């Protein structure tokens, strides 16, 4: 891609860190997106409200940025339709089996200095890099 934007990246990252910190300070919860969505898929009674609210907040925050920045929404999905469907299944199944995703393990887990999260983060970053290498440079 070659379009390196460290300042926007850092500002966005600081906001994500703030969101994760506030979730622990206010609700005492880990802000892991796969865990929050997964809990909606397989919901225990009385647990749905805050999960749904968090999930609704994500696209609303993105909408606020799109409205302020203007222009087309910055989302380019380059994968083919079959790859999108297989990728979605793998991301959904894998994050539930592995108990977390980039936010739950990669941010919250690392902030908790969890050994499980360090290992999980290394595994999913490693496999994602191998997959991109194979799909872009080999096949």
């Amino acid at each position, binding site marked *: 891609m070659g379009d390196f934007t460290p300042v926007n990246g850092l500002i966005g990252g600081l906001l*994500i860190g703030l969101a994760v910190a506030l979730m622990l300070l206010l609700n005492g919860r880990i802000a892991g997106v796969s865990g929050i969505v997964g809990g909606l*898929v397989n919901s225990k009674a009385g647990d749905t409200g805050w999960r749904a609210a968090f999930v609704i*907040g994500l696209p609303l*925050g993105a909408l606020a940025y799109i409205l302020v920045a203007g222009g087309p929404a910055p989302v380019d*999905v380059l994968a083919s339709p079959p790859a999108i469907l297989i990728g979605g299944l793998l991301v959904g*199944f894998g994050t539930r*089996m592995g108990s977390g995703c*980039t936010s739950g393990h990669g941010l919250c887990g690392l902030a908790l200095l969890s050994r499980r999260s360090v290992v999980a983060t290394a595994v999913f970053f490693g496999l994602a890099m191998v997959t991109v290498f194979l799909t*872009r440079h080999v096949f």
Partner: protein
Amino acid sequence: MAVPRIFAALGCGFIFGLGLAISGMMNPARVIGFLDVTGSWDPTLAFVMGGALLVAVPAYRLILGRGHPALASGFSLPANTRLDTSLILGSALFGVGWGLVGFCPGPAVAAVVTGLPAVLGFVASMVTGMALHAWISGERPVRKGSSDAASDPR
């Protein structure tokens, strides 16, 4: 206490989604630009993770030093510390899916706002994968008034 917690979660989701959009990481093409270490590498994702950890690591230390969260009676933290097969295999499957499309769960859910068929298809597929895992691992949704729920050990 439930209503303040719902508004708090809405606000946290909003800030999270805003951060994802500003950072550029809501765009799978940019994420793949980071993962493509042998191509024209875009290091932005490292700045996003770095920025987030810069806040989260000290904040978690300070917050967990308090007795309890502001709106709940206790912290709900993961208790499992074992490095087991599900952790490794699940993370590996997730990594392959992430590399195929460039979407992990947070950015995919935030990007639903674009209404793009590719995003909606990915999220529907992801939720199906989650439901499939719940079904295979024997988790059952709690149904009100059903005999299943009454006999469920949890």
